[in-house]
């Protein structure tokens, strides 16, 4: 039996639920969103990832209706959203500050949106009870927001925004205020709820781990533009630019000049006196073109003896060791002064660690381990 893969973005027939069409948003002189076009599909868990000020929150606020595009249009289920005020949109938002009404109980907070719809009383009761069960808040229904913990408040905010069955749920840094452990638990809870309700989620975050964990697709943003949209694994494994490679996880960037030496194969001249690096890349480079090799530390092997039969090998000295418990990151300084990070799992007890400071080691990686990126 094969499990159908959820990737509507590869299906030319699929219609996106949300469509940004050449959207530009300016605040005075400042351009927050710069000519942005993108489609988000139904049932997606879409993450907008980027540093603060990159425009991700502006994008979300335009979806909610709190900002209107300076140019271009946004469509929700084929309908142009420009003239629709926030209170008439089939979207709900979970605010970064949660924005729970302090004068209302948890129950009344969740029922707030339903009452505005004019839903009959017994239906409101049922729906609120259902949301309380979904977010495991049954016991706190009568309390006020200031009488519950941060994690519980976060769940109330989620329940309140889901209560109206929105077509689209917007989450603005939803887990920012939680501590790390709780955040991880809540991430899985969010995915679970998203799956159960089948709602389309758009999440804004600056935490790349969070985006990678929860999202079906991640859009990496910078200066009002989307740099890359792809599934988390593709964002990580095949970033399309140095910016994305650098923003997501740890990476070694080696600058050099490419010389083609076979089909999809290049020799990279990178430092005087060092043998050129062998790299395979589907991206085409011309002779002598400037390029950057992005290679993840965990794809670099660290050896005590010079290995044979490998595509790339360099010699260096251990400068620093970052011990993270399960893994260690070794900062290895090459004779040319370049520092390359290599990661290895700590399969042995720390007292029997194979490498220590000032050891001479050999770093090796395969021709396909890295990604060759243009300037």
């Amino acid at each position: 039996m094969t499990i159908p893969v959820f990737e509507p973005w590869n299906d030319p027939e699929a219609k996106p639920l949300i469509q940004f069409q050449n959207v530009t948003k300016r605040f005075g002189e400042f351009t927050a969103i710069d000519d942005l076009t993108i489609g988000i599909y139904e049932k997606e868990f879409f993450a907008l990832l980027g540093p603060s000020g990159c425009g991700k929150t502006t994008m979300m606020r335009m979806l909610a209706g709190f900002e209107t595009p300076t140019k271009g249009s946004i469509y929700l289920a084929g309908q142009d959203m420009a003239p629709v005020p926030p209170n008439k949109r089939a979207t709900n938002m979970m605010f970064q500050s949660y924005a729970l009404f302090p004068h209302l109980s948890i129950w009344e907070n969740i029922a707030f949106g339903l009452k505005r719809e004019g839903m009959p009383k017994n239906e409101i009761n049922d729906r609120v009870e259902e949301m309380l069960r979904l977010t495991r808040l049954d016991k706190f229904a009568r309390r006020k927001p200031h009488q519950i913990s941060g994690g519980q408040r976060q769940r109330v905010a989620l329940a309140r925004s889901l209560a109206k069955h929105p077509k689209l749920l917007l989450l603005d840094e939803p887990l920012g205020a939680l501590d790390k452990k709780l955040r991880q638990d809540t991430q899985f809870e969010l995915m679970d709820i998203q799956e159960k309700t089948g709602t389309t989620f758009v999440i804004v975050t600056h935490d790349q781990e969070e985006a990678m964990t929860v999202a079906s697709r991640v859009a990496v943003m910078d200066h009002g533009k989307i740099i890359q949209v792809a599934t988390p694994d593709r964002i990580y494994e095949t970033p399309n630019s140095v910016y994305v490679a650098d923003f997501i996880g740890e990476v070694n960037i080696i600058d050099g000049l490419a010389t083609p030496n076979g089909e999809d194969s290049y020799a990279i001249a990178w430092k005087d006196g060092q043998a050129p690096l062998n790299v395979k890349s589907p991206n085409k480079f011309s002779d002598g073109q400037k390029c950057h090799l992005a290679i993840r530390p965990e794809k670099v092997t660290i050896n005590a003896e010079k290995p044979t039969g490998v595509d790339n090998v360099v010699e260096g000295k251990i400068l620093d060791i970052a011990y993270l418990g399960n893994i260690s990151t070794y900062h290895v300084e090459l004779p040319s002064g370049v520092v390359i990070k290599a990661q290895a799992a700590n399969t042995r007890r720390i007292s029997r660690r194979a490498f220590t400071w000032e050891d001479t080691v050999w770093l090796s990686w395969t021709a396909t381990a890295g990604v060759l990126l243009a300037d």
Partner: protein
Amino acid sequence: MRRFTLIAVPYLWLLALFLVPFVIVLKISLSDVAVARPPYAPHFDWATGIWAFLSELDFENFTWLTEDDLYWKAYLSSLKIAFVSTVLTLLVGYPMAYAMARAPQEWRATLMMLVILPFWTSFLIRVYAWMGILSNEGFLNQFLMWTGMISEPLTILNTNAAVYIGIVYTYLPFMILPIYAALERLDESLIEAAEDLGCSRFTAFWLVTIPLSKTGIVAGSFLVFIPVLGEFVIPSLLGGSDTLMIGKVLWEEFFSNRDWPVASAVAVVLLLILIIPIVLFQRNQQKQQEAEQ
């Protein structure tokens, strides 16, 4: 010990400047009028002793307050004027406080200054200025006649309308400041959340902004209601002969009639009436403090 001193200072202050004078006034209210200096009797005399002195005190003046309908009418009229002025001040002050709280950050200090600015001139001078504005030949009538809106001057001065104008003008800052404080703390995202959940601008205001500024509204209302109830200067300068307020009655009993005991009884009853809103005000402040914790 230091803490004790810190607490003792306000209590001593209250004792010296409120409780002791109050006991004196209470004592006078239980005395009888006399052609003497001071104009009441009995006086405490060491020779006859405390019991002889106390036995001469009675509640005659309080009984008198219930017998002459001038007094309860004055109390009722004062309550009515205080209530109506509080509502009017709220209606004028709330939009002003709201606009101030929504103004750009850099303007707020200036706007606040403008609200407080009138306090820099004497209260009495400002009330006299209103006489100049509201009288038949005053600025307001001159202006209205000049624009051609009226042909005959309006009689505003020496009516209740002038009293309301004067009270609303004078007490407006006391209404604006607590409401402004409550509105300024209001998180803008709460309004957005309400709109996001299906509220129009107006329902969001009604269901979120108003309830969350309730403590400010209550505080401001009491800060206006309590002093207006005993107000004397504004009704006597701007009001007419038919403006009946207890502050004015008190003054007349004291200075025109020289009936200190009845005047004191009027003051004691006024204080008893004021205790109710003061207790309610205290409770509001306490609730607000609890909510903030």
